């Protein structure tokens, strides 16, 4: 727990506009607000393709550097940046397969960043899996609808990163 403030600390209660105005009556009730937000997220999906291509190309550039033998510091941050973006957006827009692939990819890359030896094959197979998301028929699938792919990626992530084995705590 944080330390108590020193005796010389000034303690005050700021009046912020946010706290004053956000409490006004007339706001959007939570249930309706969440529904509205989900509808807006659906509309935003229209721009997904363009965004996805940009993220994927950035990721492929980073992984190509890894494959060419570049030092891990030269590519890992870019790779992590793009895979985290893919995972975060995938989850927010409800593309579960994208979320799954990018999550196991994040696990591998976070492991490499922490010092785990880089296994180029594991990076390549994840990039290949992400290429499937370009196709709309795959984009809306869940991981359990592609069990072989899902199990394979999970096994790869287990074998080359610090992720605990299935069933192990």
């Amino acid at each position, binding site marked *: 727990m944080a330390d108590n403030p020193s005796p010389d*600390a000034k303690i*005050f209660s700021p009046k*912020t506009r946010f706290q004053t105005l*956000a*409490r006004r009556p007339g706001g*959007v009730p939570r249930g309706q607000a969440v529904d509205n937000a989900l509808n807006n997220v659906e509309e935003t999906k229209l721009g997904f393709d363009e965004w996805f291509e940009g993220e994927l190309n950035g990721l492929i550039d980073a992984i190509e550097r890894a494959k060419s033998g570049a030092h891990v510091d030269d590519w890992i941050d870019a790779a992590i940046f793009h895979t*985290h*973006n893919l995972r975060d957006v995938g989850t*927010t827009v409800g593309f579960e397969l994208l979320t799954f692939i990018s999550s196991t990819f994040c696990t591998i890359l976070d492991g490499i960043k922490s010092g785990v030896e880089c296994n180029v094959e594991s990076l390549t197979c994840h990039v290949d899996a992400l290429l499937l998301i370009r196709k709309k028929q795959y984009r809306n699938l869940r991981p359990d609808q592609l069990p072989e792919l899902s199990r394979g990626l999970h096994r790869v992530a287990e074998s080359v990163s610090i992720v605990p084995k299935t069933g192990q705590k």
Partner: protein
Amino acid sequence: MAERTINLRDLLILVADPSPFLCLLVHGMLRGFGANKVLEVRDSPGVLETLNGHKIDVLLCDGALPPHGGFALTRTIRRNPNNENRTMPILLMTSDTREATIKAGRDAGANMIVAKPLSPASLYDRLAWVAFNPRQFIDTETYFGPDRRFKIEGYPNGIGRRKGDGAIEVAKETGPALAQDDIDSLFNAARTGQN
């Protein structure tokens, strides 16, 4: 805890994230909540420039905002006595939910950490929590920001409380990732000096 309704109309909200698409998603969520004044920037210099020209009511900032990250930016904003936005609520959005990272966000002066991936429900609840649970500010030589002393008094909009919840001990070591509920428990129900 009863559900709280927030009114975001006419509040100026700044969303800072390097990903234009994620900004768009957050912007869409905020519009769904009733917000009608949302600005977007992609990096820390953009935030500081915007703060110079606008009175921002709440900042939603990516923890990894280029070039130095949202945590450093939060510290910079809080520690600048000439910044009129110094006490605005700051919510840091991050995928890195290790306990050490959450503690770093708290120590930087963030009001709340919001775990990525974002969901509309979690974002609404965290904004409601900040709106209805004002915290005193502490101003010392080494820290300026919301009171960092915490205890569990319930989650935003009644999100489940675990049976064993008690006072929070923050580990020294870097630990495993935390769920949003655990993050809330670190940022929840600030003690305002009465206890």
